[in-house]
């Protein structure tokens, strides 16, 4: 299967991974090979087959609607690359 560098750049954009033109050129045939290989799944007759949703039968549990966790702001922020005044901070997004 042939994948164009432009497609690689579009997918990288969706995945939020910065990519150079040279990297897109290099990745295009790699991804093409992998996608070509997985396309053999198309030959399997899956008419009337339900897609798997749970690998082992299990039931969804409900719990009482009460607060069981929280009050750990500083621990939540402990690994933030940047935090101020008890918040995560990011570059300005509004002009």
């Amino acid at each position: 299967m042939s994948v164009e560098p432009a497609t690689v750049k579009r997918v990288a954009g969706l995945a939020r991974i910065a990519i150079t033109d040279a990297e897109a050129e290099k990745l295009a045939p790699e991804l093409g090979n992998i996608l070509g290989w997985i396309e053999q799944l198309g030959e399997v007759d899956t008419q009337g087959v339900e897609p798997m949703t749970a690998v082992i039968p299990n039931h969804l549990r409900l719990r009482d609607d009460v607060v069981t966790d929280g009050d750990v702001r500083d621990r939540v922020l402990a690994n933030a690359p940047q935090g101020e005044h008890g918040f995560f901070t990011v570059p300005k997004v509004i002009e």
Partner: protein
Amino acid sequence: MSNLTDLGVAAIRDGVRGGEFSARDVADAFIDAVAAAKPLNAFLVETPYHARAAAKVADDARAAGEALKPLAGVPIGMKDLFCTQGVETTAASGILKGFVPQYESTVSGNLWNAGAGMLGKLNLDQFAMGSSNETSAFGNVVSPWRRPNDTAPLAPGGSSGGSSAAIAARLCPAATGTDTGGSIRQPAAFVGITGIKPTYGRCSRYGVVAFASSLDQAGPMARDVRDCAIMLEAMAGFDPKDATSLDLPVPAWEAGLNADLRGKRVGIPKEYRVDNMPSEIEALWQQGIDWMRDAGAEIVEVSLPHTRYALPAYYIIAPAEASSNLARYDGVRFGQRVLPDGAGLQDMYAATRAAGFGDEVKRRIMIGTYVLSAGFYDAYYTQAQKVRTLIARDFEAAWEQCDVLLTPTAPSAAFALGEKSADPIAMYLNDVFTVPSSLAGLPAMSVPGGVDKDGLPLGLQIIGKPLDEQGVLNAGLAIEQRAGFVARADKWW
């Protein structure tokens, strides 16, 4: 007294309990072994203080005449995919460099509660994506094994390659692993140790860095079947913090060990005879069949017709789930941030992820993003999940005819580092025998069966019915007793 680092989990537990040696002596022996094994690059972080503290608790409890916990005095290695409170956890990725979890994964917490101590955090393929440990951001793990008269470094398997190398090199008696498509079983086979992936849901995924959530499952790696049973008993159990955790009691697997297979039927799936399988693998498989028969089992040929579609289905489902799971690495809440001059939020995301993720991780995120993107979802992802249903049905049909399945673990012995890294698909094919049972959530283990012409270990895989870890362990024990596998790597490091 023999060298303490030659002892396994049961021997250490029983020796500490019986007062033959102190837990402190055991911890010190392994701590020294770890410190002296840098060329293997198996450990990312060493935590001698943790192992010594657990040893002290064990020795103090014994001195006070108290009952000892199930793993009292046993130091272990922890795959660096498990969050350990206060100890850096990176999943071998640059993007998590410096991440110090504020909480403990359930599985590691269960092991500490059982009395185990931690020697350190073990290297792995980055985010557990790989079959050779060559995708770690912190360097390859080198197998303790070598070909005769050849110093070329061999792959310890992956993704749990730090775990496999450390156990084979006697740096720890046991370690945790995780298995998404074979990441416990293939590395165990490559270095001549034992490893079991339990039924999906037995071990909590809480605090395990996520790769593909519908497949990820933790399990133990150790030098023999009994040690795996002891470890798994400590690791498994219901956890309300994991929505897919099974709310079932943990069986007494060690007490239930029984290598008498009379009345059991062992299935041999004919589709696992793949093209170009080395004759040594074929011969080992036949030897395994003979051992099963010798243990009293009846051998039946079974068919798993969709086997050949398991790998391509896996390489849609796993990357799709990974692309979703790894969206969390955004440079905002944890891990590394790369903020180019004047960059906005979107550019920061993209620069952070470009710098932090390794090539294989990016490749899988991109594949996953592609197959989930608008217009392709049904053709790829839905079709793969339908094929997954068919693969699970194949196994269900097989269980009408047999109790466990016997196959080789991997299609070859360990390959040299660098030998397959240029061709992603060649690397993916290493998981051809382990992926189908992962897709079906079944318990499966690898036990060493013999060596190839170069003296390198080869493994046999046993796959069991859902929740029948006992049947898997018992069949594994029957092989272990007959294989008499004692080969070990000569120390060169």
